[in-house]
């Protein structure tokens, strides 16, 4: 019912190049492509957020050229963005109904709103949350669910989901898939973007692949193997190692201690967590959304002030938890945070400036020292090459990069700063399959170089493939640890739920 005809969008370079596609009702149409291939740009054009440079669209046979999201909505096209847009100062219910607050003569009908919010939230597995609570009390994963709920509770014709599962763990993803099946049966055309190929294989009726803005082709379910998809996505000239063959734990874990956490408290979400991390070890942290993993990392890093406990970095004497990130960084910790938009990047600044940022504290000459603009540019260019960051130049502002490429900039910034212990919160969030391999390689190399690495990820397979051992957080507590390389996923899953079951 929705037909794209030679849709094109030019920025400094061409982001989407003559894409013609057709979406049918009741079908899940997956859109795949490497980071920066133009998927989000294409979606934004369909949803009326940006205007195409060339090309046209037809909806139900009628000409469709929305110049605002509002128009798109009224024509029956809805989008869930890749980036979160939850308003922290409003309540969950208000976020849900923002574009259409239930009211009479402009006065809110709170009761109606509350009732309907309860229904919708429990529908999306957020039933235990109070609709009157502020959205600022949610973690990223819960925010993502809220965002999906807010954009899908109204019936639509076309629904675009741009990486909805990037911050979700299995349980939430499963629930979303159920909803997708439901919408499918209601005859909604769904455009689905994800970097998790397994998901795509399970869900999609049709698969389209973009590479450098150009459509490579469209296939039906089952026509493509994973390796075909990857080879379609990536440039054949830049050959990549096949997936999963390199997914083996690295051998060189020493006995030296890199970080020891003792009885750490950050009420109410982190409760007496203790563990230790050895140099050269990759320690994964698994858990459900809202289990407190992000809070744990923030408490260790001093981003939030822990209320109790002690830390021991390398063989230095144990000390109180850090009071601010500055102390942590000076003690040799670095942290790749989960919410790159809020606290990881300077969106309007260039790639070079972002990579240089943590280094600014290190120049020996003090604050009036000259910045080495040229050096920073060279550095940025090196990282753009090594991490395959798709950009026009190292001067491009980070906010205009695609989501996955933004994540790579965050990575580059901390690789450059370097430290003895790396805390990584969802390090591969939004990064495409091929580049993900690259990131794993980088992480393993760090480990080989003797760093201690703590990885939080909602993708259990990723943890299993990458980590020397895995700890499980459940309801704010560090419940069990498993050591690799042979994990039992079922046991880990059970441990993730353990903290919630009644005693």
């Amino acid at each position, binding site marked *: 019912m929705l037909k794209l005809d030679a849709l094109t969008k030019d920025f400094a370079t061409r982001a989407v190049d003559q894409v013609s596609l057709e979406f049918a009702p009741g079908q899940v149409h997956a859109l795949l492509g490497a980071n920066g291939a133009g998927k989000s740009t294409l979606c934004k054009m369909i949803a009326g957020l940006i205007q195409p440079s060339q090309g046209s669209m037809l909806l139900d046979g009628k000409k469709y050229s929305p110049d605002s*999201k509002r128009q798109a*909505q009224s024509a029956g096209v809805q989008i869930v963005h890749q980036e979160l847009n*939850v*308003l*922290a*100062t409003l309540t969950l219910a208000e976020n849900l109904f*923002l*574009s259409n607050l239930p009211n009479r003569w402009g006065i809110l009908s*709170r009761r109606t709103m509350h009732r309907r919010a309860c229904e919708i939230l429990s529908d999306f597995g957020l039933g235990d949350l109070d609709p009157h609570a*502020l959205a600022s009390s949610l973690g990223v994963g819960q925010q993502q669910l809220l965002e999906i709920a807010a954009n899908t509770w109204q019936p639509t014709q076309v629904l675009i989901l741009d990486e909805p599962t990037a911050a979700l763990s299995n349980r939430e993803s499963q629930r979303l898939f159920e909803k997708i099946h439901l919408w499918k049966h209601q005859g909604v055309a769904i455009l689905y973007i994800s970097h998790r190929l397994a998901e795509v294989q399970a869900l999609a009726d049709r698969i389209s692949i973009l590479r450098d803005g150009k459509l490579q082709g469209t296939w039906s379910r089952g026509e493509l193997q994973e390796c075909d998809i990857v080879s379609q996505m990536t440039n054949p000239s830049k050959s990549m190692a096949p997936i999963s063959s390199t997914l083996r734990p690295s051998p060189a874990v020493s006995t030296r201690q890199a970080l020891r956490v003792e009885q750490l408290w950050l009420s109410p979400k982190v409760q007496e967590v203790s563990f230790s991390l050895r140099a050269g070890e990759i320690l994964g942290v698994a858990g459900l959304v809202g289990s407190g993993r992000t809070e744990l990392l923030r408490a260790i890093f001093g981003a939030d002030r822990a209320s109790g406990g002690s830390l021991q970095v390398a063989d230095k004497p144990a000390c109180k938890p850090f009071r601010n990130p500055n102390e942590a960084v000076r003690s040799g910790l670095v942290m790749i945070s989960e919410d790159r938009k809020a606290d990881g990047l300077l969106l309007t600044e260039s790639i070079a400036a972002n990579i240089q940022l943590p280094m600014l504290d290190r120049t020996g000459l003090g604050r009036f020292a000259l910045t080495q603009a040229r050096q920073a540019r060279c550095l940025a260019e090196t990282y753009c090459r090594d991490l395959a960051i798709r950009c026009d130049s190292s001067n491009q502002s980070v906010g205009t990069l695609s989501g996955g490429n933004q994540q790579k900039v965050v990575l580059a910034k901390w690789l450059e700063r370097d430290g003895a212990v790396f805390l990584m919160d969802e390090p591969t969030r939004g990064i495409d399959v091929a580049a993900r391999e690259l990131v794993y390689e980088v992480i393993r190399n760090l480990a080989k170089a003797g760093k201690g690495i703590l990885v939080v990820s909602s993708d259990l397979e990723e943890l299993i493939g990458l980590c020397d051992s895995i700890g499980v957080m459940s309801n704010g507590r560090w419940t069990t640890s498993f050591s690799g390389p042979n994990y039992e996923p079922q046991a880990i899953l059970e441990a993730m739920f353990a903290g919630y079951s009644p005693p």
Partner: protein
Amino acid sequence: MKDNAVSSNRPIQQTLATYGGLLVAILVLLGFFGVFAKNFLTTTTLLTMANSIPDITVLAVGMTLVLIAGGIDLSVGSVLALSACFLGWLMVDLKLPLWLASLGAIALGACCGGLNGWISSAFRIPAFIVTLGMLEIARGSAYWITDSNTKYVGSSLGWFSDPIAPLGVSASFLIAAAVVLAGQWLLHQTVLGRLAIAIGTNAESVRMAGIRTTAPMVTLYAICGGLCGLAGMMQSARLSTVDPNSGAGMELSAIAACVIGGTSLRGGQGSVVRTFFGVLVISILQTGLAQLGATDPIKRIVTGGVIILSVLLDSLRKQSAIR
């Protein structure tokens, strides 16, 4: 921080947590001046104070709404003067009946405000500069209307500012109180109020959600402007004159009241009732210092210090509450 969460459990703790710091500040000030200034803690003084704050209260309410939506209005003082002068012109020169003239003054204020909102929102120009321009324009127009003369309007507006017999407070004060409550209600119970908070938090996200931000912004600024008109009437009533110089510098007092009350200048956060407490802090300070007969240097130094201190204490209290 979480003033907006309307939660009904633990109402007393909630209220204390929300208003506690400000109440303490007000009590400390009252106590201090009660001890050191003669005749300070008397009904007369308190009533005098109550009858002198309606205009700044009403301005500050409008300012709170605009600040919460991420804007700012520097023109409130000038628009106050302009509407007051317009009122004088309508009443004295055109001899319009009071109700019509008042309506005209408030409408003019609302127009100025709406214009501020429209220009800044539709063309994405910082409100600071738009309203700074309006500050000059409105002040100039006020001079122009009155020919730079103060105009006597007599007691036709008197009922507005005369104390009502049994209560001792004026109609202005009651209206101002009603405006505070209406403002708080608007913020929490209406679509416009919620949109104000949303836009103030992140205008881009609101636009991404497919909501037009211009119309609500224009409405909010127009409300702020209309309240300036109301404040202008109150001031004229109190002085029986309209004066093109009136309200000069009042924008900073109004903003100070809002910020003392915890409204964020970055938008998204604030409470009208707390703004009212902010007005009280400022006016108690002013009255107390005047009754002490403090010299001007001391008045200013103390005022500045107390403004900083009250916000500092509130911030420290919040930080310790989080821990």
